């Protein structure tokens, strides 16, 4: 199986600050992977590299068949349409309703989706995150956790081959967080590669999936699924 994401010696430096340091990594289709590490370790930076929000300072990086490290600006949108993203700060469009936000995620990628279809599928996605009755609300009318769930719905609605989520349960209670994880597992089972950056120890330890540990920008540990014991990064940070 060809990897959907491949990091080959990727380094990212902000000014003089090394946020990601020589990372080698492969993600496979259908795999649910957790990305953990202390605050400021470089998790968001790694995810931003995948979505071509950032370019690597050095190293090579392939995403969904495209060479992200040399990708022309005109083809960036094409890459991003193959990646569903849950941003750490949600990034909902403030002037669209929840349903419109989700539909935007769908139709931005595929013009062939008709309006009714977009509405139906967006409604399904909102139902899946438990917000079926809040489709008409604007982001500022939703609670923090509700906004976060709209962001999850937008990321999954187009069923992209790759899904990356940055702290998608940070504002959710334990039970709702589990529902989101169920959703991610379903999506992974459907063939999507899912990468979730999270601080939620309970979830990571219980699900027993693959865990990548970042500390100070270095990928210090890559535990395969089923062998996630005591969280190493708790001690090492």
């Amino acid at each position, binding site marked *: 199986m060809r990897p959907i994401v491949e990091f080959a010696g990727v380094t990212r430096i902000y000014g003089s600050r090394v946020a990601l340091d020589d990372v080698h990594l492969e993600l496979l289709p259908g795999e649910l992977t957790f990305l953990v590490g202390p605050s400021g370790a470089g998790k968001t930076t790694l995810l931003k590299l995948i979505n*071509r929000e950032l370019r690597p300072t050095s190293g090579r990086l392939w995403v969904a068949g495209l060479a992200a490290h040399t990708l022309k600006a005109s083809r960036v949108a094409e890459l991003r*349409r193959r990646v569903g993203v849950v941003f750490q700060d949600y990034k909902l469009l403030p*002037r669209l309703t929840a349903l419109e936000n989700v539909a*935007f995620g769908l*139709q931005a990628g595929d013009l*062939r989706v*008709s309006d009714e279809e977009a509405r139906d599928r967006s409604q*399904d996605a909102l139902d*899946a995150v438990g917000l079926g009755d809040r489709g008409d609300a604007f982001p500022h009318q939703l609670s923090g956790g509700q906004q976060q769930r709209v962001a999850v719905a937008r990321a999954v*609605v187009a069923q992209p081959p790759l899904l990356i989520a940055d702290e998608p349960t940070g504002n959710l209670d334990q039970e709702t967080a589990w529902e989101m994880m169920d959703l991610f597992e379903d999506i992974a089972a459907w063939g999507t590669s899912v990468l979730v950056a999270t601080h939620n120890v309970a979830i990571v330890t219980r699900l027993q999936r693959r865990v990548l540990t970042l500390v100070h920008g270095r990928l210090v540990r890559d535990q395969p699924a089923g062998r996630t014991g005591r969280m190493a990064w708790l001690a090492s940070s």
Partner: protein
Amino acid sequence: MAGVVVRGRFPRRRIVQAVVTNLVRHLFGGAARSWARNLGSTAPALGSMTLLLLMSGLVGLTGFALHNLQQVETGQASLLHVYLRDDATDPDVIMLSQRLQNDARVAGLTYVNKAQALERAQRIPGLPQLADASESNPFPASLDVQVKTIDDMAAIDALVRDDVAVDPVYPTSYDKGAYQRIQAVLLGTAVAGFAFLGLLGFIAVTVTANSIKAAIHARRDEITIMQLVGAPRWMVRGPFVVEGAITGAAAGLVAGLITFGLTFAAITAAAGAFMRFAPGVTVTVAALAAAIVLLVGLGLGSGSSLISLRRHMET
């Protein structure tokens, strides 16, 4: 619960229809609604644009009227007196008259006899005692030739200068120096007028573009989000350009309607006076001006949206 999403379906029927619908909706359908939602950030732009477009429209119309007025007055300035010998015979004068009347450059011809010439001279300030003081009438009869354009004065002058009926010493009122002065004044006025119109236009364009820029700058976060979600370039730009166009068109429409309304009211209220002071400004011309104002607003709104989007679009 979560399973619902995964059972996604892609019934690829009526795809063309959907694509077209989506294109139209993304570009126009939502734009009007979202324009209304965003009025808060576009209101200042709208105000400035309306004011300046209105100004441009009215000043443009005024300029047009002044231009026509000037044409009329230039017509009056292009009157050539051809002085006749006191001893010119009637057939000679008639010959000369016919020669002039057949000339395409001549618009009209009037014969002024010596008595009329004296009477006219008495009306010139500074010569009041003339009629009384002098027994004999020193003023010659003349043919007053209305030349179609002031530029043909020299040619007509050359044409009649050596005619037998014409006074050989002071053949005509044509004065090269005075003519050149008039030309200079006309040119100066035209240049000044165009410079002013151009300046106002430049201000209108700059301020409008700046207003739209500011409105888009206020929404740069949205542009970033759309790009991050993978929206293609046209889908990010499209709605902003259409919204800019709506803003421009709204400003242009208001400005155009006011321009037309004011002109129309002036025409109907005082047709006579208006015709005299603003010749050529008819209802049709007013409507045309309003349409131009509208189109300029539309073009400016969409154009400057497009340009200022570029700055926020580098990836």
